[in-house]
């Protein structure tokens, strides 16, 4: 087990290193000098030089890379070119929208997918099964930002149950804030719930074909009892992996959905920074998100090995 964890830890570090180099080089090749951009046309050469120094833009490629990484490790993400505020502060502010949104969507997706998948599997081949599978086909094919627009049309504009966009703010209280995240979370959760329900169903059907289920049935359990007591727990392993992987989709999907609902989260911040060529913000936010994704996948790998000892060998 220790060897497995160490092995995964080495590959985690390696992925993070390569990812950071790729992201860094990406932003490096962009033409234009942010310092000149910030100071305008009449800037003196020595002021430019001083500002570059301050922004961490001087020195060799390697010096800039290492100062970026070392800064990030200490929680210093640099200074935004346009807002002139620390990027770390901007991220900390926006995180309180993006993270709850992703978790809310993850919770919804799981709450929808588990019953749907279990129901479909337990009634295999029936009308219920066909219906649920048909709905998941739709859910996978629907662009989530379009689904979001349709929901705005129905629930915000026609029924007036929700506001069409914006964020109430956590200071307005927990429920008003959650309410403004509800439509975005549903839009985000739907495609993921569809995928998850399909995985849940097929994984459950696979385990229902196992010998130990036949044994359980022979012992006198009904099909439902065998499903709940024996099949479900074993079917959960692939489902958990998919939930872990979905985290990365939720992050990327959240970026788009935040734009539909004008939520001031990390996604809006990325687009505003792109528009303003504020690449230090783009660079840091992307690195942070990639870091989160790689870390979650690492955690899933470890959890997987804890649950199923056979997988430790694969390290």
């Amino acid at each position, binding site marked *: 087990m220790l060897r497995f964890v160490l092995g995964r830890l080495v*590959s985690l570090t*390696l*992925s993070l290193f*390569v*990812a950071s180099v790729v*992201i860094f080089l*990406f*932003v490096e*090749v*962009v033409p234009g000098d942010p310092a000149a951009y910030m100071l305008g046309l009449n800037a003196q050469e020595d002021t430019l030089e001083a500002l570059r120094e301050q922004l961490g833009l001087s020195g060799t490629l390697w010096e800039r890379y290492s100062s970026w990484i070392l800064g990030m490790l200490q929680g210093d993400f640099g200074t935004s070119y346009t807002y002139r505020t620390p990027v770390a502060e901007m991220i900390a502010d926006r995180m309180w929208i993006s993270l709850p949104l992703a978790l809310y969507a993850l919770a919804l997706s799981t709450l929808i997918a588990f019953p749907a998948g279990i129901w479909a599997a337990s009634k295999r081949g029936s009308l219920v099964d066909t219906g649920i599978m048909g709905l998941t*086909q*739709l859910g*996978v*094919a*629907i*662009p989530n*930002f*379009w689904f979001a*627009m*349709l929901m*705005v*049309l129905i629930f915000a*504009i026609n029924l007036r149950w929700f506001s*069409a966009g914006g964020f109430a703010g956590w200071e307005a209280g927990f429920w008003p804030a959650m309410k403004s995240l509800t439509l975005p979370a549903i839009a985000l959760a739907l495609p993921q719930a569809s995928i998850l329900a*399909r*995985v849940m169903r*097929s994984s459950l059907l*696979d385990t229902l074909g196992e010998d130990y289920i036949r044994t359980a049935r022979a012992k006198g359990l009904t099909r439902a009892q065998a499903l709940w007591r024996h099949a479900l727990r074993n079917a959960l392993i692939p489902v958990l992996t998919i939930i872990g992987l979905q985290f*990365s*989709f939720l*992050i*990327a*999907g959240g*970026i*788009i959905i935040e*734009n*539909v609902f004008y939520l001031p989260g990390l996604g809006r911040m*990325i*687009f505003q920074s*792109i528009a303003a060529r504020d*690449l230090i913000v*783009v660079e840091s936010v*992307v690195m942070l*998100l*990639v870091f989160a*994704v*790689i870390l979650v*996948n690492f955690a899933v790998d470890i959890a997987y090995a804890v649950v199923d000892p056979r997988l430790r060998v694969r390290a």
Partner: protein
Amino acid sequence: MRASRNLWLGGLLTAVFSLAAVISFAWVPYDVTKLDIGAKLLSPSWAHPLGTDHFGRDILSMIMVGARTSIAVAIVAVGIGMALGVPLGLAAAARKGSLLDEVIMRGNDLIFAFPSLLIAIMITAVFGASAVNAIIAIGIFNIPVFARLVRGAALSLWTRDFVLAARVSGKGPVRISAEHILPNVTNLLIVQGTIQFSLGILAEAALSYVGLGAQPPLPSWGRMLADAQTMFSFKPHLAIFPGLAILLTVLGLNLMGDGLRDLLDPRLRRAQR
């Protein structure tokens, strides 16, 4: 029975949208580059079956021309993924366990670790928003998909007797991969290609929606939705039809992929999710 129903329905939907794209080269109901402000924001009617947008452009015509963009972007993106992914997968399988294999597979893992849309956003942010950059961004993420698929399938083929026979007759790994392994993975490639094609259409729509895909003179479904953003509350048709076009195309491709999988290789039904 069910397989062929999926295949028929999916094939039909795919055919309709491909045909719309092909026809649009020769004929569209209205010119999509001409603005007619007098006819702006019309609801669906006989003259404009799907209505008109805020510049008075016919939405049906724009959807037909937009199909071209979506299909072209997705085809090239899948092409990039196959052109690079398949040889990499074949090479990794032919040299199983070697340094080459290790490097290829670790590289794949790395690309998989990135949320694809995030990197697509980054590529278009840095190199500018354009259909070409969107293609590259989507294409890169297709490489590991095909590489992994081909490697997995090729590994089991390498243990088969006909490959052994080919080796005995003196063929090298390159010739065996090309002449014996590749023809046996084509079915898999067709099925996965269909799936990636539909994912490509969704990704292109999302990128265009946030303004990072196809740029203004080029009509695109995603951007039609972005343009509708401020107006769809009082003119829902602006958002409904382009969205339906995306949904039906993607649904068609997915159903076709499922149908093809059942048709070409029934054994895969259990293995694939």
